[in-house]
């Protein structure tokens, strides 16, 4: 390990690192899906995950039985949603993100990732997004349709046989 990346050897740091090393891969994947970055270069997703994990670290002693994975995921999604809300005015005319959820809006990405990738119950995803549960169901359904028929395919074209 290079000298700049030393991790302190406290019990808290050890417990946190063993959690983060195990769950980090899945959380980073989740972040990359949200940001829509190409797999090779994911600076924004890494920034989101670093921020969410540092928050989990700071709250580590006060988790009191809360799942650190759920906490981190919630913080990560909330940060992404907040940033997306602030960027919404600049979104028009933006080039399409290269990731698999590239064609979707931020809300659709969150709904898809929470419901279909993480399997979070509808009510919980709705609470995280601050939307009614029916709206989350509609977002997920619409997003699935858009992903099944990528732009370029003629409208009404058969779904890709997979």
């Amino acid at each position, binding site marked *: *390990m*290079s000298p*700049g*990346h*030393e*991790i*302190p050897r406290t019990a808290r*740091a050890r417990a*946190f*690192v063993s959690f*983060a*090393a195990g769950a*980090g*891969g*899945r959380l*980073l*994947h989740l972040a*990359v*899906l949200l940001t829509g970055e190409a*797999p090779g270069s*994911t600076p924004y997703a*890494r920034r989101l*995950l*670093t*921020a969410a*994990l*540092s*928050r*989990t*670290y*700071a709250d*580590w002693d006060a988790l009191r039985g809360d799942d650190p994975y759920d906490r981190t995921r919630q913080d990560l999604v909330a940060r992404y949603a907040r940033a997306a809300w602030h960027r919404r005015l600049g979104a028009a005319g933006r080039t399409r993100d290269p990731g*698999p*959820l590239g064609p979707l809006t931020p809300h659709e990405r969150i709904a*898809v*990732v929470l419901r*279909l*990738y993480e399997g979070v119950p509808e009510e919980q995803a709705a609470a995280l997004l601050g939307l009614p549960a029916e709206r989350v169901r509609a977002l*997920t*359904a619409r*997003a*699935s*349709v858009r*992903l*099944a028929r990528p732009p370029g395919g003629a409208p009404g074209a058969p*779904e*890709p046989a*997979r």
Partner: protein
Amino acid sequence: MSGEDRRKEHVRRLLDTPPPPVPQELLAEAVRRGERLRRLRAGARRFLWVVGTAVVAGVVVWLVVARPWAAPEMPVTPPLTGW
């Protein structure tokens, strides 16, 4: 399987790729920033405690010295009438 279920299954397969490895420096950076956040919070808490204690002590001292519930001393003797 309905069309919607099939589409959801398709999206699930689309998303279920092996997760990337977490860079060690990301973890180290998270611990560093988390530690700083903890110290900041502890500092803020200590500061609030100090300020709170000082305010309470100040009020107690003032109460003891000034005795604001006692009737104020009259600057002049009341006129003596009707004796």
